[in-house]
């Protein structure tokens, strides 16, 4: 066991896979010499050389496009988008090629690519730097989209992602890159992608969140406990595939569900989870599924960002409202 934050844990996972599997290569903007703008890939180029860990031009479409070629040819590229908000130039490569290569080639070719990217707000950054666009990718057949919320999960999930033969968007909640420390097991372990994690058992209401929002929900749950409300918390971990079973089981138990997400409200992940609750547990519901989410606007600049972000108070308000419905 070693105490790590999420940055250390991701670095550790990359280090392990680079050492173990010669087909793994890591690249992206500032990933090599600088070690990434958030220092996630620090030290890797020194250790594994410029052939396997290197800087790319400022060209997201090129980064993903070359990764598709390498993957089809047998490598396992792990590429970095510097921010989630920078991924749009690579959109065509991801949707038109990576996501459908297996289908198009009738199973002959696969694209085992991991696209890592920091996402989400709460760090007083600029426009483009705070977005949560997981919904867009969760909607596309042929992609997997996962989000860790702890250092342990980040390491186990990233190793599982690199070992998977699918194209995976590995979204890193940068707000908690360094905000949470945890004892993380040394050596290799994997956490299966697509499995949600019930991190707190409760009886009155289920709250589903992922990434940086999990910590906010945990704080709200403490407030709820003081108010006599028992909250079950599910860390979704995987936007797609989505763990319908865990959600359904929990809602059948509590009769109420709230989702907490950072992205815009309309057509968001919260809407999908609410619908799963309706389909799987309609007869158990005591209140309408509720969504705590961002708004249908661009994430505001630092001064106004707190209006947009979810905090324990907003979440607790919704918990109380739902339980008293």
């Amino acid at each position, binding site marked *: 066991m070693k105490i790590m934050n999420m940055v250390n844990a991701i670095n550790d996972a990359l280090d392990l896979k680079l050492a173990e599997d010669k087909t793994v290569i890591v690249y992206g903007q500032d990933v090599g010499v600088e070690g990434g703008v958030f220092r996630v890939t620090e030290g890797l180029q020194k250790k594994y050389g410029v052939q396997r860990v290197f800087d790319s031009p400022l060209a997201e479409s090129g980064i993903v496009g070359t990764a598709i070629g390498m993957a089809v040819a047998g490598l396992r590229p792990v590429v970095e988008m510097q921010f989630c908000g920078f991924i749009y130039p690579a959109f065509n490569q991801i949707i038109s090629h990576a996501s459908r290569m297996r289908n198009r080639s009738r199973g002959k070719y696969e694209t085992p690519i991991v696209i890592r990217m920091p996402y989400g707000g709460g760090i007083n950054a600029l426009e483009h730097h705070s977005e949560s666009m997981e919904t867009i990718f969760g909607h596309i057949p042929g992609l997997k989209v996962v989000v860790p919320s702890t250092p342990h999960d980040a390491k186990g999930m990233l190793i599982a992602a690199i070992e998977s033969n699918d194209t995976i968007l590995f979204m890193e909640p940068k707000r908690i890159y360094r905000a949470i420390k945890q004892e993380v097991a040394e050596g290799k372990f994997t*956490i299966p992608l697509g499995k949600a994690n019930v991190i707190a058992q409760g009886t009155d209401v289920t709250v589903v969140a992922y990434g940086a929002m999990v910590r906010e929900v945990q704080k709200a749950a403490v407030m709820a406990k003081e108010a006599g409300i028992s909250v079950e918390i599910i860390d979704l971990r995987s936007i797609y595939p989505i763990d319908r079973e865990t959600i359904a089981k929990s809602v059948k138990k509590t009769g109420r569900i709230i989702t907490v997400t950072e992205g815009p409200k309309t057509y968001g992940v919260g809407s999908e989870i609410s619908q799963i609750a309706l389909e799987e547990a309609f007869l158990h519901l005591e209140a309408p599924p509720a969504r705590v989410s961002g708004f249908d606007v661009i994430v505001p600049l630092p001064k106004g960002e707190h209006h947009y972000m979810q905090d324990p108070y907003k979440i607790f308000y919704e918990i109380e409202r739902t339980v008293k419905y």
Partner: protein
Amino acid sequence: MRYIFKFPDIGEGLEEGIIVEWHVEKGQAVKMGDPLVTMETDKVVTAIPSPRDGIIAAKFGKPGETIHVGAALVEIDLEGVEGEDAIAEAALPQAEKKKTELVEEEGAGVVGTLEVAGNSIVLSASIEGVHQVAVTQGKAGRTLATPVARAMAKDMGIDINQVKGTGPGGRVTKDDIKGFTSSGRGLSGGNSQSNQGSASSSSAGTFASVNQVEVEPLSQIRKTIAKNMIQSKHNAAHMTVFEEAEISDLVSLRNRHKERYSSEGVKLTYLAFIIKATALSLKKFRALNSEMDVEKGNMIYKRYYNIGIATDTEKGLVVPVIRNADKLSVKEIALEIQKLSDKARDGKLTLDDMKDGTFTITSYGSIGGLFAVPVINYPQAGILGIGRIHQKPIVKDNQIAIGTVLPLSLSVDHRIADGGETARFINSVIGYLSDPITLIID
């Protein structure tokens, strides 16, 4: 230094209390043990003593306001300890501040500012993926119903979990809820039509006009009484047996000795004899002195005999307890009754006076009523109701004679006590009362 005194849990799991009266003013000096404030909790009205010597710097809450356990009641300026502790306190935040500054430097990035965890706060480790993780099974079993059926039940004031579902997969349908209102809900019988009508209108609160009613908030004691009564009626299977004890011998015994004991300051009441007779009978029939632990699947038989006495006070019903009544003489019981009823009248009963009862006696006859169906003081197994003592014609030695009769109503929890046991118990009580000399022999 200021000491913040928080409302303590003065009993068993109290959550809140209502301020009745303040005994101190801001700026007033208090000694440890001085009464600060009188609080009404759901069990008692009691004065909270000051935990320290000092001067009242602030008090929180006005009479009538509810204070939660753990909330601040008063702030006390402690005499003499001001200097030293104040310095110690001032030093703390600075050290803290230094640490956070250091941390912020580390978190500064190219874009934005990342929060950095301190070394003191570490998330607990996970073993998922590293070791086999046992899967915990959540418990299901909530009533199935469509939202529209739930809404309907809510509107009608029905707990949907009480309704038996007849729909697909045991689903509670709208018809089930309608059927529930017309059958069996409430104790008042009547035909289904009128019952249904009253069920739907009762939740709205039916009174002619606002001017003709007085609305008062429920006192804590009233709330507790209501909760306990419902709990008892809901959980225990009530069964009541009625009997009469012919107590001419007890009357003459009491009349012979009343004066003598009175001069010793002892009020020799019938209740004292009845308590003694009950305690001795409980020793013979242990089911009546027990409780059922359904969750663990156990019966708990008690080897102590603490008799609660339902007592009418201005504020409402309280049940002080006479401990180990089987070991006390009738005189000692009489003295204990006097002590407890004085305390009850003055509102000075403590939680200790009222806890650990194993059986209850309610003596409504002293006010009026021949027979009543007493509600068990749950989770106890039984309660004995004492009716009004009166003279009436009885048959004695094949002749009509004037007898003195004590009506008794015994309610038991039929889950625990069977009919035979119950009848034998009440016969035993009657045996002691009609031949009171046995009270000192047994």
